[in-house]
């Protein structure tokens, strides 16, 4: 007995060892045979201080049969049929809008919704409100019922209890379409199904989820600086600014074409034009300035305007709890990589020029200018009128000289004043009547039919339009800063259209573009450029912010230390940064952009809520993973049959054993 046992044990051990060698993974995994994985963009959960927005899946993956909806007729048929089993609706972008989503969610038993396809809805679609940010405390017209965004549906401010995702990649999108179509074409099993795993950990609101560490504040790094690093405390300066971010219903994919990329591209091109002109004779240029030029790209403006607010509140009242070194150039708690903002004097702002949405071309006048712009400003500040008149004079004159410069017009007096913009923050917080003019491609309402949506992409943008606005901004800045008359502004100050084209490819298309590669080296991360700021991280800078700082620093032609470097720390002086493997003097700074209602606690590596007042405290929920899988579903009656069959088999065996015990002489 014992001998036999030990032999079989030996064979058993040999078998185990052989299996270990054959099977390289530790478990036998059938997942690849059963499931097809996708990489969706999810409408994940975003919270503010009172509410929850976005979608989530239940804790256990929810699954259902795929059902394809490609036209309105399909949708009506589905709603009438109202099948009894759980569905996953696959909806084409042509019929993707808030009404249809709500109809689906209200009427049907759904496990989730998958948005597929590349067709852009012709009737326009915007998930933002009709007056974006009107409830925010920085809005200058909180009681206005004016409609800036006529396509707005406020989808971003809804909450769904089922997951909704978007498949961007064409291969995945078409595969899902085929699977869903196969379900409709035949009634036979097996059918195709899908399940979602995107359980959102945060709950209730931002205050609670920050306390429980189930969410993180949304933010990033704004980029600001003075042109050429020239800042003279005793004289006023002009502030050129724009927003750096946007969002969409699927925040991970926010292409942000007309908003905000047109503004970003225009401002970078304008600064580039000025810097190229300055490079001809640097000393003469900066000596001719009677006012300095400050530029700023504010991050996270879509989330309570935190970029501009944080900067202003830091300039006015920042105190450092723990300095990095005795020279007090950097602060560790709260973390600020540079204290240069302390030298900014906000009462010296001569006026603000903000670039809103500037990329859509609208042929508005008989003269067929290649580029048009509207000037928006607050009506209760009398200084805005002569200022806008001087802009118009300058651009009209430059137009007559044959340059491609925007034809500017004042906006319709029926508008309430400034549209939603970062300039509102300055006027609200600084209390003084700062002249502020916003240049945009729209007059009474947004001409952008896809404001803040997944459809606001490069097709929206016109390169001549962008060049015109950029040239206008550069020449206006030069004329006002050096106090020269329109006829004396040098003809060479013109924006470079080739650069604009490259910038558009990078900011709206893919981060793997040539321009980004040249400045930032190898890029890792998402392929598609997204303008969603993401969560604030103290040690990572987003690609867009880093590129803007590096590009401007490089163009400023500051003293180039030929020492080779790869990171900022490699450069000898604290006043230098590493751009393109060489050390340059800093002329553009990062500034943290996150809600004033939270402060980072480096000891515990978490965000603590401080007195936030009216701030909205936008946060993004945490999650374990976002997954979408498809698989085949068996006829449910097979499961029932297996259960019944199994029970019968069990009863049969029980009966046989009972017989055997009763009548043991049979066996």
């Amino acid at each position, binding site marked *: 007995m014992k001998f036999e046992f030990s032999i079989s044990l030996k064979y058993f051990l040999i078998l185990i060892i052989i299996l270990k060698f054959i099977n390289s993974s530790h478990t036998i995994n059938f997942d690849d045979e059963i499931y097809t994985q996708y990489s969706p963009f999810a409408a994940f959960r975003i919270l503010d201080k009172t509410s929850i927005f976005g979608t989530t899946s239940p804790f256990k993956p929810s699954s259902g049969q795929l059902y394809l909806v490609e036209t309105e007729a399909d949708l009506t048929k589905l709603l009438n049929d109202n099948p009894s089993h759980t569905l996953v609706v696959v909806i084409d972008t042509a019929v993707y809008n808030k009404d249809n989503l709500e109809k689906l969610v209200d009427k049907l038993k759904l496990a989730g919704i998958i948005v597929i396809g590349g067709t852009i809805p012709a009737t326009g679609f915007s998930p933002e409100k009709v007056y974006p940010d009107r409830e925010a405390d920085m809005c200058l017209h909180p009681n206005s019922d004016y409609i800036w965004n006529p396509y707005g549906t406020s989808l971003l401010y809804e909450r769904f209890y089922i997951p909704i995702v978007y498949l961007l990649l064409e291969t995945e999108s078409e595969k899902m379409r085929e699977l869903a179509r196969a379900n409709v074409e035949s009634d036979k099993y097996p059918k195709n199904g899908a399940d979602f795993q995107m359980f959102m950990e945060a709950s*209730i*609101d931002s205050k609670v989820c920050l*306390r429980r560490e189930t969410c993180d504040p949304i933010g990033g790094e704004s980029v600001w600086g003075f042109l050429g690093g020239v800042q003279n405390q005793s004289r006023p300066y002009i502030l050129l600014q724009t927003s750096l971010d946007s969002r969409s219903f699927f925040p991970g994919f926010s292409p942000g074409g007309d908003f905000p990329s047109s503004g970003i591209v225009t401002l970078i091109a304008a600064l580039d034009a000025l810097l190229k002109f300055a490079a001809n004779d640097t000393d003469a240029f900066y000596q001719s300035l009677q006012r300095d030029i400050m530029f700023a790209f504010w991050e996270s403006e879509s989330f309570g305007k935190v970029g501009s607010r944080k900067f202003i509140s830091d300039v006015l009242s920042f105190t450092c709890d723990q300095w990095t070194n005795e020279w007090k150039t950097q602060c560790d708690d709260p973390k600020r990589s540079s204290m240069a903002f302390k030298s900014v004097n906000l009462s010296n702002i001569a006026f603000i020029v903000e670039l809103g949405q500037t990329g859509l071309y609208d042929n508005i006048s008989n003269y067929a200018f290649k580029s048009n712009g509207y000037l928006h400003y607050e009506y209760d500040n009398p200084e805005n009128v002569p200022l806008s008149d001087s802009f118009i004079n300058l651009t009209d004159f430059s137009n007559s000289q044959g340059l491609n410069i925007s034809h500017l017009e004042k906006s319709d007096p029926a508008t309430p004043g400034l549209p939603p913009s970062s300039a509102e923050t300055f006027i609200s917080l600084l209390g003084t009547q700062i002249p502020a003019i916003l240049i945009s491609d729209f007059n009474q309402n947004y001409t952008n039919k896809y404001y803040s949506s997944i459809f606001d992409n490069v097709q929206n943008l016109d390169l001549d339009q962008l060049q015109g606005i950029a040239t206008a901004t550069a020449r206006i800045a030069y004329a006002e800063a050096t106090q020269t008359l329109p006829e004396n502004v040098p003809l060479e100050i013109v924006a470079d259209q080739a650069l604009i084209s490259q910038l558009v490819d990078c900011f709206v298309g893919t981060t793997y573009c040539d321009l980004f590669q040249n400045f930032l080296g190898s890029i890792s991360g998402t392929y598609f450029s997204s303008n969603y700021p993401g969560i604030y991280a103290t040690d990572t800078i987003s690609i867009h912010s880093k590129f803007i700082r590096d590009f401007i620093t490089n163009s400023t032609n500051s003293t180039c230390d030929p020492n080779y470097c790869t990171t900022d720390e490699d450069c000898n002086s604290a006043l230098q940064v590493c751009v393109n493997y060489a050390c340059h003097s800093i002329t553009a700074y990062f500034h943290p952009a996150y809600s004033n209602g939270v402060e980072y606690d480096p000891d515990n590596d978490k965000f603590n809520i401080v007195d936030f007042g009216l701030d909205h405290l936008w946060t993004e929920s945490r999650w374990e993973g976002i997954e979408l899988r498809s698989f085949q579903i068996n006829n449910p009656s097979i499961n029932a049959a297996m259960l019944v069959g199994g029970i019968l088999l069990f009863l049969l065996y029980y009966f046989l054993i009972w017989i055997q015990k009763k009548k043991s002489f049979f066996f």
Partner: protein
Amino acid sequence: MDPSTPLTEEQKIKVAKKMYIAGFFFLPWLWFCLAIYFRKEKNEILQKYVKKAYFGFFVFTFFLLTWMAVFLSQRDRWGVKGDNLSVNIPYGDSNYDS
């Protein structure tokens, strides 16, 4: 405990008394065990213990269940205090939505 040598009455009373006192340390199920174990005894004193144990068990369980119901449904409404009282706070949606 050897079934061949059953406990004497005195020993049973001692055991019952120990179980009864121990039950006061937030151990209602010990009271329940006491009641079930000695339910067939005829002794007066043991019967009294059984009665007291049943009483204690039901009263304690009543309060425990009430507290559980209140805590689980209202904990989110209590803000910081609620979180501090919790050993484990489940992720995701709760019944409380402001």
